[in-house]
């Protein structure tokens, strides 16, 4: 099979990394691109609920008012999208998963994996240990403002150590499960774990 012709003078977007802060294959952006697997849902805050589940059993449930009355956490982190853009020093506020577990009366995650359920049939997954010890939150504010619906408002999961498709928008349920289950993109060939520093974009990487 012959080599494709080189397009003279074409330079792809300069991948900035790897550097201390930019993972391999990523480039910096200053805007905040929007990517969704479906239309932006309209959320009725009166009926909004966030649930923690141990398998099939609910172990914690919060209304919007109850959720926002929980102790708040602020995080400033870098985020990395599998489509190669990275954004540094993004500021988020919300409720950490540690706080949620504590509010549910749990000293630790009840099972080793999590399946995240969101509006519009979107799901994603990760090991439970990637959500605790300050590593993740359910975020309601970005850059000091309430989270825009396009970016996951009223509430999205934030797991900055993994590719950003795992920071699931419009989160509703965090289900702790014994056996790892792939979510929406993971079933379509994206990496089951998704560590940007090991460039785990696709299954088999």
């Amino acid at each position, binding site marked *: 099979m012959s080599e494709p012709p080189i397009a003279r003078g074409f330079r792809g977007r300069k991948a900035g990394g790897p550097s201390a802060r930019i993972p391999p294959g990523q480039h910096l952006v200053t805007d905040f691109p929007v990517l969704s*697997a*479906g*239309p932006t849902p309209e959320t009725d805050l009166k009926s909004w609920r966030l649930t923690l589940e141990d398998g099939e059993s609910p172990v914690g449930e919060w209304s919007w008012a109850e959720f926002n009355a929980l102790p708040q956490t602020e995080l400033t982190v870098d985020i990395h999208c599998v*489509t190669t*853009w990275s954004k540094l020093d993004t500021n988020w506020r919300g409720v950490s998963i540690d706080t949620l577990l504590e509010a549910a009366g749990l000293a630790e995650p009840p099972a080793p994996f999590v399946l995240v359920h969101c509006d519009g049939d979107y799901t994603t997954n990760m090991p439970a240990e990637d959500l605790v010890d300050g590593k993740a939150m359910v975020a309601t504010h970005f850059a000091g403002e309430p989270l825009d619906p396009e970016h996951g408002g009223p509430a999205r999961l934030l797991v900055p150590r993994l590719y950003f498709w795992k920071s699931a928008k419009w989160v509703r349920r965090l289900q702790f499960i014994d056996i790892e289950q792939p979510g929406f993109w993971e*079933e379509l*060939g994206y990496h089951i774990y998704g560590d940007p520093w090991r460039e785990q*974009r696709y299954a088999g990487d």
Partner: protein
Amino acid sequence: MADESQGAAPLDGNAAGGLLHELFALDVTAAEVICDGCGAVAEIGAVRAYGGAMGAILRCANCNTSIIRLTHTAAGLWLDMRGARRLFVAAPA
């Protein structure tokens, strides 16, 4: 439209046409597909796609079911059609 990463970001079934053509031996953008969620019929070219540069998620305009999910990763092509009950491609006139 954010011109991101290495792949095109299909916006409807038309733009997913090339990708679909890698899998199907013929053009399916004119194919009629029946949504398994609600039974609505649509031509694939008319169906709106989400997913940006991650892949083409074609959703029923009537009930939002994912009719076709298509990604092209380094490992290969993935096609999930659980949301499509049936596909019909007309014979040429």
